[in-house]
């Protein structure tokens, strides 16, 4: 196998992501300039055929206490997309990671299991780590013997536990409750995606319509507080990530896979290159790696960073060749 294939693919994915995000911005500006109504990522489409932000849509349904047919239809389409591609939006469409990277405020890697406190096994021998990880951290997996009981119930319990541990699941709950009580989509006010394209729009109105407004200053200021001052928005707070994570558990398409034969961990080297660059701090070598991969944003950084080029992305979902040190640790999920 070509050891350069993974990094090459990673670089290609990074380029493709830059192009898609640029295309989003161009589409928003073209839409403003030519009245084409393409819209913003909050809702985009052509004429009466559109998709909308799944969180905004849910908030609107809860706030209005009405079943809005057009919204329900669009939400169903978005849900199918999320079931196929999971969190891809976060790396391919959302401007937040790029803004953070621009200010060089990416969260630091604090070792394996950083999200759940210290992990004693972080630098240990991977073979030992696998066996003892569950004692090390809440984030750790289950003992092999337990995971080997590949009952559907246990998989669902793992998924639920994973979602329960994720603070973003609870931001999502808070946001939906707030919309229900307030009677309007409250989160849309502070949404980084909304604020980004609100900034683009207000700049457009400033330049083209000579509309002087403090929005031009307030929107980017709020955005900077959320993303730059507090650098862990995506990791800890984003309710959109929380919502997409729930779908991501089922999304088998486009996940990264490890070639166990060339991975440094195979001979005991405590390499964490892939986890360190992962925006979700996914440890594919963990016993619950497949569950963690539900949060994968398909950003390709792990493939780019892997020193042995052992990580590749395949668009196609593959049951038996999924990443895990111990293939018995998970059952194949019917797509």
């Amino acid at each position, binding site marked *: 196998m070509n050891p350069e294939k993974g990094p090459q693919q990673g670089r290609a994915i990074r380029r493709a992501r830059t192009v898609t995000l640029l295309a989003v911005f161009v589409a928003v500006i073209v839409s*403003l300039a030519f009245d084409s109504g393409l819209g913003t990522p909050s809702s*985009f489409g052509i004429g009466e055929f559109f998709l909308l932000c799944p969180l905004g849509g849910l908030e609107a349904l809860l706030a209005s206490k009405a079943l809005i047919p057009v919204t329900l239809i669009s939400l169903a389409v978005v849900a199918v997309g999320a079931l196929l591609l999971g969190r891809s939006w976060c790396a391919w469409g959302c401007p937040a990671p790029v803004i953070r990277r621009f200010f060089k405020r990416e969260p630091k890697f604090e070792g394996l299991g950083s999200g759940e406190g210290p992990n004693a096994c972080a630098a240990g021998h991977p073979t030992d780590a696998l066996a003892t990880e569950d004692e090390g951290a809440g984030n750790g997996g289950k003992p092999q013997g337990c995971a080997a009981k590949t009952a559907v119930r246990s998989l669902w319990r793992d998924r639920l536990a994973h979602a329960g541990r994720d603070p973003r699941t609870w931001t999502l709950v808070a946001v939906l409750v707030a919309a*229900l009580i307030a009677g309007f989509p409250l989160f849309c006010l502070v949404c980084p995606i909304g604020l980004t394209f609100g900034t683009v729009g207000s700049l457009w109105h400033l330049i083209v319509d000579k509309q002087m407004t403090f929005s031009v200053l307030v929107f980017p200021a709020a955005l900077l507080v959320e993303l730059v001052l507090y650098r862990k928005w995506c990791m800890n707070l984003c309710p959109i990530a929380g919502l997409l994570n729930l779908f991501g558990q089922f999304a088998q398409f486009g996940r990264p896979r490890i070639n166990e034969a060339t991975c440094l961990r195979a001979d005991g080297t405590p390499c964490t290159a892939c986890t360190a660059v992962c925006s979700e701090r996914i440890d594919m070598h963990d016993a619950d790696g497949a569950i963690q991969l539900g949060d994968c944003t398909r950003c390709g950084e792990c493939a780019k960073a892997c020193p042995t080029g052992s990580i590749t992305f395949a668009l196609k979902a593959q049951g038996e060749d999924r990443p895990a040190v111990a293939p018995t640790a998970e059952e194949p999920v019917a797509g």
Partner: protein
Amino acid sequence: MAKSRGIERRTLLIGGAAVAAGVLCGAAALPLAAQADVLRPPGSLPEDEFMARCIRCERCISVCPTDVLAPLTVEQGVLAVRTPFVTFAADSCTFCDECRKVCPTAAIGTVDPYQPALGRIGVAVVEPDRCVAFDQAGTCGVCVDACPYEALSFDEGRRPVVEAEKCNGCGECVKICPANVLTSFSGGSQRGINVLTTKQYAERSAS
């Protein structure tokens, strides 16, 4: 299983805190929800319903062929910021229905411009202290000629009068009103005729 129960307890705690935070934020915003008193796109639902549905995607603003829709600024209302409002500074509404078609949450409904009683953008009101025809009778009447819905006519002194039951607030009269330009020497930027929200109109009629 002791460990897993620990996680459960922590989850419950976080979950409870999240719900409480949601209730608190929601309750704090509740009294401020529908406070913006601005012209909404034609056929918009009542303000509280409109606010409940609008996700501030600005798609209506981007599709509007006459660019009369703009996002509310922070000065106009912090909680309603980025929701659409109608401004007739440069053009008027043609009731083309595009904003209704693109709204992803159906916050904008259908409207018949010839049936203002069933739904309208607002009502035009002549400002006697700004209108040129009130200053010098017979000098101006462009708004009367411009009104596509024959809601404007002259009174006996050749001053424009709005028939409120015919006016849907399309803004054609506002767009064409030259008072802003003609009286610019005396200061002020108000036009001789403006479209008021139905709420503002009711308040003005009452006083």
